[in-house]
């Protein structure tokens, strides 16, 4: 595949070189046992330990799996490292299930399949920055990521920015050299790093190996099967996910010449559980208003850094690659830095859980007239959100001149997607190649989407001492700009005293 050279590729290669520069891979004689709260006792092979022990993976210990969620759900302190190992274990279980059911296509090299999906699981999140998706929300709109995607439209599709970074790490020259010099000659296993990269971004270039990709990036991929269990367990939000049932029904089906991962019709209930679990986790955990408010603070830290040309450990954060050099501890460390102006105050607020409060709720339930204009609010771009913050501050200044636009945040969360309903096949005959979509059985994606849309809330946040003035100002500005009328819930839900 021809790929255009982009500056970000060079930066990622330099990053991988720097990470591996001082790493002296030990010779591992035998597999290691690693215990896990969710998945029990598991074996990792010597070549995997060599990769797991590298700084590329060790940094994931310092990145929260659920960004700032522990500020609201205190036991949600699990990290990207344990999740990555979990994905490798579940990918292994999916392969074993396919072998047990004798579902693997003829000529499949099952050892190569197993080694590749496990390695893809281990590496799939190595592109995450501090606080996982919160970094991604910032650098996802950077020009270098956009250019890389636009120049390789067919390769990346709509892969998430962190998946793109993981792909670039895995396919970098520096990592190829590491595998060539340390993994392959010592342990005698060859890896197709392009294929592992494609598994991470969900790109199928080899029809015979479509199901390899789907084990890592598909409807019921190992990533999802791990994070649903892990996030629900550690946050204390109980979910049902019958993995054993899924493993008894997993299969391969040929569609348009591609060997795809599927499940028997009898496993549909597990797929429905996945969709409903995802829906509940988003509304209960990931989009909790305190979580959203903390995420606003995090973004403001980087707004300050950018606005004032501050650097953190020599990085200016004008490239997505810069986010690979920092982990959660670096963000909290900013609280003690003296040369980064207000960014330090913001980090201290995050560290001490001094979070902005709700000043106004924007949703279909808090708007009484012209509900269709909610569409304009929900689709505001970054420049318009800045203008809205400034307009609210201008109005609030009439009552309190101390309030600035930087004391006001407008947060418009994305509504979760439920691709599972329409994009992946369910096998309908034991030995045939007929398939249907999940939504053909029951339009689960429509129902979960309707739930998520009804639950959707946008917020105006501000500091506790400004909530009354900001509430009035925000209500007045938004009603005027968007020709809508808020009802009393828009304020009462905020518990403004």
């Amino acid at each position, binding site marked *: 595949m021809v790929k255009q050279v982009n500056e970000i590729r060079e930066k990622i290669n330099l990053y991988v070189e720097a990470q591996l520069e001082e790493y002296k891979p030990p010779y591992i004689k035998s597999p290691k046992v690693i215990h896990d709260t969710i998945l029990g006792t598991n074996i990792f092979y010597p070549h995997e330990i060599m990769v797991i022990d590298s700084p590329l993976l060790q940094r994931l210990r310092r990145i929260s799996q659920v960004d700032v969620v522990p500020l609201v759900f205190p036991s949600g302190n699990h990290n990207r490292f344990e999740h990555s190992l979990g994905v490798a274990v579940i990918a292994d279980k999916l392969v074993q299930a396919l072998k047990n059911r004798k579902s693997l296509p003829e000529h499949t090299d099952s050892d190569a399949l197993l080694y590749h999906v496990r390695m893809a699981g281990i590496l799939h999140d190595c592109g995450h920055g501090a606080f996982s998706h919160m970094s991604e929300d910032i650098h996802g709109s950077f020009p270098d990521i956009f250019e890389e995607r636009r120049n390789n439209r067919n390769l990346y599709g709509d892969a998430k920015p962190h998946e793109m970074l993981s792909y670039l790490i895995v396919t970098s020259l520096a990592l190829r050299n590491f595998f060539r010099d340390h993994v392959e000659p010592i342990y005698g296993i060859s890896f197709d790093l392009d294929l592992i990269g494609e598994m991470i971004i969900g790109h199928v270039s080899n029809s015979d190996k479509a199901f390899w990709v789907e084990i890592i990036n*598909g409807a019921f991929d190992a990533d999802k099967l791990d994070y649903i269990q892990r996030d629900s367990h550690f946050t204390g939000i109980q979910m049902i996910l019958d993995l054993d049932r899924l493993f008894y029904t997993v299969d391969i089906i040929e569609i348009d010449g591609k060997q795809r991962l599927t499940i028997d019709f009898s496993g549909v209930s597990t797929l429905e559980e996945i969709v409903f679990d995802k829906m509940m986790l988003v509304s209960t955990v990931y989009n909790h208003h305190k979580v959203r408010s903390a995420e606003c603070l995090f973004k403001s830290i980087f707004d300050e850094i950018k606005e004032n040309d501050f650097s953190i450990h020599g990085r200016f954060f004008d490239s997505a690659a810069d986010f690979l050099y920092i982990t959660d501890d670096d963000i909290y460390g900013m609280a003690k830095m003296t040369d980064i102006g207000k960014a330090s105050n913001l980090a201290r607020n995050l560290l001490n859980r001094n979070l902005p409060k709700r000043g106004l709720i924007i949703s279909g339930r808090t708007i009484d007239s012209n509900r269709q204009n909610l569409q304009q609010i929900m689709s505001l771009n970054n420049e*318009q959100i800045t203008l809205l913050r400034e307009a609210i501050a201008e109005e609030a200044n009439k009552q309190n001149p101390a309030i600035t636009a930087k004391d006001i945040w407008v947060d418009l969360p994305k509504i979760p*997607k439920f691709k599972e309903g329409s994009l992946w096949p369910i096998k309908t005959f034991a030995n045939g190649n007929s398939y249907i979509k999940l*939504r053909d059985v029951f339009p689960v994606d429509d129902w979960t989407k309707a739930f998520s849309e009804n639950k959707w809330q946008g917020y105006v946040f501000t500091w506790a001492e400004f909530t009354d003035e900001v509430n009035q100002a925000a209500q007045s500005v938004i009603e005027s700009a968007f020709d809508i009328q808020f009802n009393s819930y828009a304020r009462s839900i905020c518990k403004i005293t």
Partner: protein
Amino acid sequence: MSKIDELKTSLRTTRKPDDVIMAILASTSKTKIVKDPTVFHSAIFELSKNESWNGYLEDFFFDVSGISPFSDLLDQVLSRLETSCVLATPNPRYEEYDLQKDYLSISLNKFDASQQDCLKQMANKFEEILIPQ
């Protein structure tokens, strides 16, 4: 100019991916269309492959690894239109969208006459894909 006036001007003039989809829907001859993400995403994916139209749809990146194309951005656009009831879905069946044509048509103001002609062609093709002859 006050900030609120700047915002209002920006809202009136800034063209976003949502406007393209709304303009296509406004230019169709239908007031109801099938609500099936597979069909909708496939139709917009087909339109994006036409070189003379892809300038309108260049922000939409499609995942083609599944059994039909899917765009995260298009999903977001549709979610916003559904949440605001511009694409209304009669409860409890979610088989059709009722198109709120008056609201959708506002987006056409962000395109000049020749662009509106182009969007009309896209809408015709969109209908053809949605309702096979």
